[in-house]
């Protein structure tokens, strides 16, 4: 019986020949990412252990990204705790480098690795064929101290992509459409695997965007087949693949979906659920107060280029706050060099330092009572971006930028 990519990675990490869905295995972890959202809690628990030790400090990567620069005295204390601990134990540490998942992709992740991240969107790493999954601080602590953890082998949903996205349609429209189709719990506990000829038409930025959002369908992880695009990306970032797994022809999938990319349309996910997906046209004209282009989902150079192309020579609507937040310092420097930062500044956008920003909803661009945000962030849960009575619509970089110009939800072809 063949195995899926997820099964192969777990088998390798567990040191066994084969695994099947439902098995529980003890696995060796390749990397452990944690950010300022919860690391202070992990440290508190660590310090309560009788004889705490870190199994292998070289596996740890700690990234300050949720509240950067720091926005409150409470956060400042958590930050100091994290910074001091990292310094004391020699943990690889980033602050100001960008959103954790983008920083991980740029600097650490490689194919075939098994990675725990104390953040739900850790599934992003599947873009290069790594098994990334989000865990809470207790699981994180156990892995940090032992270097290991246990994993329930997930079933795999296979998404067989064919065709090509039309102009003006983006990876973000694709993944939101998929989440709309299978529902917010449609992949609970499962792995979502992407393959097929259509995948070859999607660049690494698209792939990260797709895998990153799979947790919004409940997925444990997301995985993509390694191909030339993956290998080129890894090479450009100075890394070699650890494994180069593909699902076997006779691998068992819980379900296979065939998706023709050319059928995907610009969509919007309406408040307050990521799977409330409708054709973007249905939302056209909806008043907005703020627009956000950024996040680990859609803050890469490719996304900024899309927005910049649309807004160049135009202005942000005077009553809209348009936040543009590159996903990493590397993205920022590239955008600066390409004149994209200038384009956004000229248009009247608010360009912030690389960080989670309003996607995290507690630090920058917080929205008030009854306000409406259109966002390229990961979530539109009630209260996610600020006041409990506020509204978040999710859309592509193109739709968000077009809306920022119009002052209401608009599609880019009408700007």
């Amino acid at each position: 019986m063949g195995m899926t990519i997820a099964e192969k990675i777990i088998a390798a990490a567990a040191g066994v020949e084969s695994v099947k869905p439902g098995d529980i295995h003890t696995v060796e972890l390749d990397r452990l990412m944690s950010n300022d959202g919860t690391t202070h809690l992990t440290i508190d628990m660590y310090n309560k252990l009788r004889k705490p030790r870190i199994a292998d400090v070289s596996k740890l990567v700690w990234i300050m990204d949720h509240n950067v620069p720091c926005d409150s005295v409470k956060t400042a204390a958590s930050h100091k705790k994290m910074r001091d601990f990292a310094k004391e134990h020699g943990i690889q540490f980033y602050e100001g480098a960008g959103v954790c998942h983008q920083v991980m992709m740029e600097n650490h992740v490689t194919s075939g690795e098994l990675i725990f991240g104390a953040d739900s969107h850790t599934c992003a790493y599947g873009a290069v064929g790594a098994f990334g999954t989000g865990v809470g601080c207790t699981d994180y602590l156990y892995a940090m101290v032992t270097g290991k953890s246990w994993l329930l082998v997930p079933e795999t949903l296979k998404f067989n992509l064919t065709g090509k996205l039309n102009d003006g349609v983006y990876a973000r429209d694709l993944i939101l459409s998929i989440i709309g189709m299978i529902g917010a719990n449609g992949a609970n506990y499962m792995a979502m695997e992407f393959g097929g000829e259509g995948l070859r038409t999607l660049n690494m930025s698209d792939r990260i965007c797709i895998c990153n959002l799979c947790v919004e369908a409940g997925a444990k992880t997301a995985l993509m087949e390694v191909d030339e695009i993956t290998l080129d990306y890894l090479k450009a970032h100075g890394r070699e693949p650890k494994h180069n797994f593909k699902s076997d022809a006779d691998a068992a999938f819980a379900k296979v979906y065939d998706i023709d990319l050319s059928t995907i349309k610009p969509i919007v996910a309406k408040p307050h659920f990521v799977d409330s997906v409708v054709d973007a046209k249905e939302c056209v004209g909806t008043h907005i107060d703020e627009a956000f282009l950024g996040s680990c989902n859609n803050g890469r150079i490719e996304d900024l280029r899309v927005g910049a192309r649309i807004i160049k020579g135009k202005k942000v609507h005077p009553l809209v706050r348009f936040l543009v937040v590159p996903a990493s310092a590397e993205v920022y420097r590239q955008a600066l060099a390409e004149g994209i930062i200038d384009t956004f500044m000229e248009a009247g956008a608010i360009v912030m330092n690389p960080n989670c920003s309003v996607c995290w909803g507690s630090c920058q661009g917080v929205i008030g009572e009854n306000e409406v945000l259109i966002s390229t962030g990961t979530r539109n849960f009630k209260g996610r971006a600020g006041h409990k009575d506020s509204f978040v619509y999710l859309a592509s970089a193109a739709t968000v930028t077009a809306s920022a110009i119009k002052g209401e939800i608009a599609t880019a072809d009408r700007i």
Partner: protein
Amino acid sequence: MGFTIIEKIVRNNTGKEVHPGDIVTVNVDRVMIHDIFIPFVASKFEEMGFTKIWDADKAVLIYDHLVPASQVDDTRHFRIGNEFVEKYGMKNIHRSDGICHQLMTEAGYVKPGDVVFGTDSHTTTYGCVGAFSSGIGYTEMASILGTGTLWIRVPETIRVNITGKLPENVMAKDIILKLIGDLGADGATYKALEFAGDTVENMTVASRMSMSNMAIEAGAKCALFTPDEKTAEYCGITLTDKELDLAGDADAKYCKVINYRAEDFVPVMACPSNVDNVKPVSELAGKEIDQVFIGSCTNGRLEDLMAAAEILKGKHVAPFVKLIVTPASRKIYKEAAANGTMAVLAEAGAIITHPSCGLCCGRTGGILTDGETVIATNNRNFLGRMGTSKVNIYLASPKSAAACAIAGKIVNP
């Protein structure tokens, strides 16, 4: 009997000769209101029974303290501001273009000889172009919006003469910190400061701005520089005779005259937690730091960013130290992006934010906690200003700040 600059401005404004101690009503040329206080200004204005702004074109509303919003009720200020602008026909509004004081001068709202009030203590800044400008509360702002006038007591003037060439790595910030240290935090209370001498004549308007901005930290009502060609160029105007005359007369009466030799200045810092607790950087060297902040209406201008970039070029911020850079305006950000300054700062590891008050106003932008130390180029190091009351804030010039960021400790630039 001659006159000081402030006496001439008030005379020109009221049409009669004035002397220190006189209480007079001035006609206001421009007012500035910022986002933190607009809800209060709006409600007081209506409570007072006014139905229109005396001259809506003379009022400027600027969102800067709360940009981008960091707390859920912050955007309420924008909503109230937007409604006020709409209701009373104001045209001059900036929603994310930078810090109020930078915009007031940069966008041409202030000219030499103007009388300007703002709902912010650092409104003294506009003295850099020879305007009498001072900070007031929101109740008085509401009354000006209705009447176009305000009573003032004509202040006595402290004259500060600075001559000679500044040593390398000494900036205007070091001069004003030294002066505040010498005068004390209340040394110029109720008084006007007047700067003269070839050192200030040779300074850019931006450098003068750093000095007039901080005059309030010695309690001053205003801080004035004589308008010259640099002022004219900065404001995009040709100076009239009346404007050219805005210099202290040789026989003007000063309550105090202070003379400095530029060569005697050294890089200094204002140590926790008073702006007048000023010491030479050399005496503080070696102290470990956690964060550096380059920005604010005091020191977030292009020349400040360039001075920092010159020091940071090819180097990197020390491990575990944050360097936060917040340009003072959108225009400055764009200029710094265009001339490569931003690229240098970003390469060095700076966290570059959108132009706003940022950390200087202490609501976001790099808040710190107990035992941490920050070197900052802004204007205040009060207890609790940037986090808990156990944060150590040292105020410094952009050059000193940049050097500290690389070293991870206090060093002389």
